[in-house]
């Protein structure tokens, strides 16, 4: 609990300061922003999954009421949207990176691809004019299924001669094959990790404002990382120097990964704003979001797990097809490789592991990082195959896990797939979860369900993930085209209040509270005297933004580093004023004290002395109290834990009810337990959504069948039980806060627990597998099929 004088320090469940404006409807979202003389953009999109563009006639649209300009791909001679991570094939050659023009040139490659943009005085006029654009399409066969795409024939990108983006591998294939051949038992599984559509509450939006007086561009956009957008859009696409391009990501209503990436629309309107000399607003409607926000997951995998006579895992071999969609999105290539296959050891001591990943282009919306990004796919695969191995070998679900878990004294633990875990205690989280979830009472609950004609099942997931992304040198060696540090500036004002500028971005995470708690704790000042400023490249030093559960582990560490510099300088000022040696200055609870004396100065007094430096060590220090730090992590962090799910299945309808869900997560030190609990609730809700409800579906022509909430099932309150959530933490060893990250654990740990529970419930019928989403229709069919 709090050790700061204000009671708002590390460990305190402080109410979120940002909620005052969010809950009273006074947030400032991108679509709330209007600039003088603003125009509105509407993007005409392809209705076809795959077609040549024979011609586009924009004449009538250009003359329509209120139209300012109409542009097509032929007008926009700029660079393509770049991919931020270069993957090499197993043979050493680089992956294919086909062009990704913001407005389609020559061909459209998925339903929703951008064909033209109409800019008008009003959105209604832009939409009316767009209906006047005549596009002559030469419709081509669409390629949707990954294995069909791999075989060739129809090519999404003709120039590269293949639909395979890369064919990548990690691990010792020969050793794995040998170990599998020598294993007493080999469990095999086919896994589909279903494609998800992100559905942040706020659809994407952007306002671009070119100022001809000084040739400066300002882009307001729904981004998780405005500096990254400035860098990618400025340097790679539009050739705009950074000092003339300001990117602002104001309040953002959820991202879940989908707002990491550089998108076509924000790029188009930034470019077009200079062409027309007026501001332009573009706001996606929900239907556009379904067909343009980067989708998530979409893996098809075959795996083999070897087990010896003693029940120990001997080897794991994984072959995965990963859908890239029609174009390479910003970080798409890294998700099924370094964010996925490197996690395949899980919490287990499997000595040798090999994974091959084939990334495939199809005529679908691009796929990229979505809450968990690669790690949910790894956890799902592992926890499903371990579950099946236990059933096949007649070993208890908990016993097979405990028997193969990395021991608490084995850290740091080097896995066979590159990662080295710094800390953890998987047995402890498992024990806590068994207790919290009242697993000892399960048999009675199962009997109770049976009296109602319902089948009850229990499923476990003892998962791990890697986050706190990422050590730049490691990421760079693996192909990342960016560094992955974070930055913080702590600006102390003359009367002792503080403004923090962080390169992290908050779009629901509550940084304005958590980061203020850290500063309150470090500097011993009250929360209300601290302001957290983020999201504006015009006033925040370069930062890498928020994704991969990195804000606290990386951004928070940068913040502590910056407050440390403040304390160091302030101590020297205090020593000068109190005529003591700096070594004798103690800083505690916001006061600088000369050790062993009653001489003391408050933090605010030192701040004033720094800005009114009448009595100041000018020969040693500069005036002012304003420090910046950049922090590059030494390693990833490794949150993990145990999720336990109990389901009740109604065999008459196939309806699955999640009746009990327990999550005990090791996320390192907890700064704000209330925010942590909220993060886990949200993540688990998304995980249950993936497991039971959400499934993106295309028909063979590439039309999205789940293009609205009429057909795409989001989790709702009545799909969820009251969660039992707790933390059982070991500390991260390589950052000063000991934090690991919590943003993604819920979505990573929960899906396999749910599916394992359903398989358990249906085991009486002989059902061995059920794919996600386990809809009632699918469950009912599985029961019918098993009954024969």
């Amino acid at each position, binding site marked *: 609990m709090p050790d700061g004088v204000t009671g708002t320090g590390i460990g305190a469940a402080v109410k979120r300061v940002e909620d005052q404006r969010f809950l009273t409807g006074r947030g400032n979202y991108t679509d709330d922003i209007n600039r003088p003389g603003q125009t509105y953009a509407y993007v005409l999109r392809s209705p076809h999954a795959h077609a040549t563009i024979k011609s586009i006639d924009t004449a009538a649209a250009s003359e329509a009421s209120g139209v300012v300009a109409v542009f097509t791909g032929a007008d926009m001679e700029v660079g393509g949207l770049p991919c931020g991570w270069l993957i090499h094939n197993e043979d050493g050659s680089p992956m294919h990176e086909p062009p990704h023009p913001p407005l389609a040139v020559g061909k459209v490659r998925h339903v929703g691809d951008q064909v033209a943009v109409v800019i008008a005085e009003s959105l*209604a006029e832009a939409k009316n004019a767009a209906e006047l654009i005549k596009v002559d399409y030469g419709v081509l066969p669409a390629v949707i299924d990954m294995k069909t795409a791999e075989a060739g024939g129809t090519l999404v990108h003709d120039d590269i001669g293949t639909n395979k983006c890369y064919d990548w591998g990690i691990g010792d294939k020969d050793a794995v094959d040998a170990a599998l051949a020598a294993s007493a038992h080999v469990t095999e599984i086919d896994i589909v990790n279903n494609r998800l559509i992100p559905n942040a509450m706020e659809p994407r939006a952007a306002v671009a404002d070119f100022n001809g007086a000084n040739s400066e561009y300002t882009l307001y956009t729904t981004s998780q990382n405005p500096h990254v957008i400035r860098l990618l859009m400025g340097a790679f696409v539009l050739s705009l120097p950074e000092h003339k391009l300001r990117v602002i990501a104001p309040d953002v209503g959820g991202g879940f990964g989908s707002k990491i990436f550089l998108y076509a629309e924000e790029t188009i309107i930034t470019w077009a704003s200079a062409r027309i000399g007026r501001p332009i607003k573009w706001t996606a409607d929900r239907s556009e979001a379904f067909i343009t926000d980067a989708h998530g997951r979409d893996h098809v995998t075959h795996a083999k797990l070897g087990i010896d006579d003693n029940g120990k895992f001997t080897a794991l071999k994984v072959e995965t097809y990963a859908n890239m969609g029609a174009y390479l999105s910003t970080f798409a290539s890294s998700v099924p490789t370094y964010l996925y296959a490197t996690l395949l050891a899980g919490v287990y001591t499997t000595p040798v592991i090999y994974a091959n990943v084939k990334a495939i282009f199809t005529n679908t919306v691009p796929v990229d990082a979505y809450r968990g990004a690669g790690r949910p796919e790894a956890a799902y695969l592992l926890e499903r195959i371990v579950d099946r191995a236990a059933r096949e070998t007649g070993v208890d679900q908990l016993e097979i896990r405990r028997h193969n878990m990395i021991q608490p004294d084995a850290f740091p633990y080097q896995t066979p797939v590159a990662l080295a875990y710094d800390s953890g205690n998987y047995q402890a989280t498992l024990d806590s979860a068994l207790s919290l979830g009242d697993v000892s009472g399960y048999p009675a609950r199962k009997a109770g369900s049976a009296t109602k004609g319902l089948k009850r099942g229990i499923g476990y997931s003892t998962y791990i993930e890697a986050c706190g992304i990422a050590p730049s040198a490691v990421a760079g060696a693996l192909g990342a085209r960016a560094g992955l540090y974070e930055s913080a500036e702590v600006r102390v004002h003359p009367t002792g209040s503080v403004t923090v500028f962080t390169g992290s971005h908050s779009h629901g995470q509550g940084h304005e509270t958590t980061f203020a708690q850290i500063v309150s704790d470090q500097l011993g000042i009250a929360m209300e005297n601290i302001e957290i400023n983020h999201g504006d490249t015009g006033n925040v030093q370069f930062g890498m933004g928020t994704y991969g559960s990195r804000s606290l582990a990386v951004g928070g560490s940068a913040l502590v580093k910056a407050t440390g510099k403040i304390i160091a300088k302030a101590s020297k000022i205090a020593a000068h004023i109190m005529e003591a040696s700096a070594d004798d200055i103690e800083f505690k609870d916001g006061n600088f004290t000369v050790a062993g004396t009653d001489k003391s100065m408050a933090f605010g007094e030192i701040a004033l002395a720094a800005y009114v430096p009448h009595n100041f060590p000018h020969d040693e220090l500069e005036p002012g109290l304003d420090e910046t730090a950049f922090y590059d992590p030494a390693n990833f962090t490794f949150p993990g834990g145990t999720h336990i799910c109990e389901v009740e299945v109604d065999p008459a309808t*196939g309806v699955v009810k999640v009746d009990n869900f327990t999550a005990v997560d090791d996320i390192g030190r907890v700064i704000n337990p209330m925010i942590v609990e909220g993060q886990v609730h949200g993540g688990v809700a998304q995980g249950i959504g993936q497991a039971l409800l959400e499934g993106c579906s295309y028909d063979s022509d590439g039309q999205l069948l789940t293009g609205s909430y009429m*057909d795409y099932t989001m989790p709702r309150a009545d799909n969820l039980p009251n969660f039992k959530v707790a933390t059982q933490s070991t500390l991260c060893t390589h950052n000063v806060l000991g934090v690991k990250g919590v943003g993604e654990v819920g979505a990573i740990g929960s899906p396999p627990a749910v599916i394992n529970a359903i398989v358990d419930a249906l085991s009486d019928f002989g059902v061995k597998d059920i794919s996600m989403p386990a809809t*009632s229709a699918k469950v009912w069919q599985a029961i019918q099929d098993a009954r024969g």
Partner: protein
Amino acid sequence: MHDFNYQKAGSVADAVSALNAADDGTVMAGGMTLLPTLKQRLAAPSDVIDLAGVSGLSGISVSGGVTIGAMTTHAAVSGSTDVKGTIPALADLAEGIGDPQVRNRGTIGGSVANNDPAADYPAACLALGATIKTDRREIAADDFFNGLFETALAEDEIITSVSFPSAEKAAYMKFPNPASRYALVGVFVAKTAAGVRVAVTGAGDSGVFRASSLEQALSSNFSASALDGITVSADDLMSDIHASAEYRAHLITTMAKRAVTAAG
């Protein structure tokens, strides 16, 4: 949405003449289907003729059965003590339509006139043997629903009320589509003076229909066990990403059993 002329009718006769005068007019009751369709530019009527200002179109009266004015909202039906006292299954059905916003705007006349194949009210109309009253005639439910979004209404004909005979026993059981929460299968069972009728919504290729095999079984023995072993053919049922025809067929019997049990 595209531009259109908005007209607020003062009477049913006004609405009919406005409809006839328009190039391509449409009547708006609660607007719960029409407005999203307009917003998505899937419809572009020349005129939208709003019935909201027409007096006498909403309200509930009891005489033997229940008569519900066409502009009566689902919330009014679900909250009506008259409906609860006469045909509680109808109040339950109304309570399960959409969400609170929809229930406070959507109307029975709009729902019945639209005849969405997954809407709830058509099942009640068909199972209870309701009579749909219009500005010019009365139409039996059996003659009213003519397939997907098709009814016996003439182009310029406007529903004024729907009359339901009282039921000895009745219940509606909906198995919702997990995404839209419309009926994937909805079964209304009713035992009235005219006999036992079972109507199914959400499942039929041609919209709401009566399940004759279930009606036969229940006519001699109105109990869930009477439906054991009784199947509904999957022929002529819808098959889509949410449910196969076979699953829908199975759910019809399962929901019918649950409805019979609920009807007591």
